[in-house]
Structure formats: structure tokens, C-alpha cells
């Protein structure tokens, strides 16, 4: 039984040599150890919040905002970590969680002693 010449043509080997393609893909990946963009944004918010808390004269009012914000921040960080699908380096994850805990503690302390 003869094969359809079009079948033969379509079945031409699809094996393509790598020709540096894998290296090209690897160089396009985010750099090793870099945190996802959402996490970076969350950390920037944390830094700004901390700076504002230190500088503002109305520490009591700000303290409540920090306390509330840190809760949301923790939630955001958890979401960012989940979105990273486990590709986030563990060091960066630990730093992020540590910072969130510090923010929460700072907020709670300021609320407890606003004066």
C-alpha cells in the first residue's frame, strides 16, 4: 500500500536542532533570586508606610493605619508567594514574611501606646 505523498511531506522530521535556543530561553528568564514584581511592590509599600509612621507627628492615628495596613500587607505577601508558584527563592520568601511580621508588631505596639 503506497503512502499519501502529502502525509509523507507533513511527516517530515520535525526534529529541530537546538541551535542555542535553550540558552536563549534561559537568558530570558527572570534573574536568579529575583522576587516577583508584586512582591517587590508590596515591600515598597511597607517601606513607605514605615517611613511615614516615623516621620508623622500624629503617631497615634498613623499607628492604627499601620496596624490595619500590615494585616493587608501580610495577606498581599501571602498571595504574591502563592502566585510565584513556588519558584520564589526561599530566602526571599523568608525575608518577606519576616518584614510582614515586623510591620505587624510595630503597628500593634504603636496602637497599644499611641502617645
Amino acid at each position, binding site marked *: 500500500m503506497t503512502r499519501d505523498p502529502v502525509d509523507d511531506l507533513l511527516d517530515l522530521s*520535525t526534529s529541530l536542532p537546538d541551535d542555542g*535556543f535553550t540558552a536563549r530561553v534561559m537568558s530570558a528568564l527572570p534573574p536568579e533570586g529575583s522576587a516577583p514584581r508584586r512582591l517587590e511592590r508590596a515591600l515598597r509599600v511597607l517601606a513607605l508606610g514605615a517611613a511615614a509612621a516615623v516621620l508623622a507627628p500624629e503617631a497615634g492615628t498613623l499607628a492604627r493605619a499601620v496596624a490595619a495596613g500590615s494585616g493587608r500587607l501580610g495577606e498581599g505577601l501571602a498571595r504574591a508567594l502563592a502566585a510565584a508558584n513556588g519558584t520564589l527563592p526561599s530566602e526571599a520568601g523568608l525575608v518577606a514574611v519576616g518584614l510582614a511580621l515586623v510591620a505587624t508588631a510595630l503597628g500593634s505596639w504603636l496602637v497599644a501606646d499611641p502617645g
Partner: protein
Amino acid sequence: MPRSDTELVASVLAGDDRRAFAELVGRHQSSVRGLLRRLTAGDAALADDLAQQVFVTAWRKLGSWRGGARLSTWLYRIAWNAWASQARRAPPVEPPPPEPARPADDAALDRRDLARALAQLRPEERTALAVTYGQELTHEEAADLLGCPVGTLKSNVLRGKEKLRRLLVPEPEATA
């Protein structure tokens, strides 16, 4: 002994293992690039740009791969989405003018001829041929990938093949 796709994926997810991911890319680059070359009617540069995009997306979303399906099928879906998205953005490319059919004894119908002929098919015919040849997909998997009934896929394959036959295989000369 080479590690399975599942083991390599687990290694990537557990420890940002780039060597394991490079092994996955090396293992699947040919079929993903091949699929995209067919979808882009032989535009190798565009196909490779899209293929790079496919693997970068795969790196980011590797955690969402369900181990039950083959990794290649998952990659083809990303490739299909990347191509469909690109095709929506870019205007359709005018197919190149057909070349005169070669004499029947010239068996060297090469990739360039195929690409030229594929470019003259309707998009759904080209797509159906692209996913059913050379990708080790069953008709059911291919239809699922394209989101169409199996019958529609088969019709498009048949019509596409018939057009290719007319374009690529010269009619035998009538004997007097």
C-alpha cells in the same frame, strides 16, 4: 538514567532549579518550535520568538501544570494561545505567490514548498494540520487543544490535505 518530566518539574518547583528547566526546554523545544513553525506557515523567526515566550510563560506557571496530562500537551496549549494572541494583533500575512508545480520525478519537495503551500490554506485548515502532524496528539487531544469538535478538526485536516495535494503534488500527465 534521564529524569522524567514530572521529576524535572518537581525539581524546578522545589528549588528554582534552572538546570532542570533547561533540560525540559531542550527536551521539548523541537516539538514546540515545530508546531509554531507550522502555525506561522514557516516564519521561523516569529515561531522562535513565540516559542521563547512559551517557555518563559511555562517557567512562571509551572506550578499550575497538572501532572495527569503530558507536559508536551500543556506546552502546546500555551503555544496555541501565544500564536492565537499574536494572530489577533497582527494583520493576516498575504500568502506568497504559488510556484509552478515541479515535474513529477522531482521528489525533493522540501520544507520551503510546504511552508509556501501551508500559507495558502485557510487558518483553520493550517491549524488543524499543524496540531495533528508531528505533535503526537490524538485527534481528541488536538480538538480539545483547539476547542472544536473532533468532527470539525477531521474535516479541516481533510480539506487542508486536499489543498496541499493540489498545490504540491503535480497531476500525472494525461496519456494520449
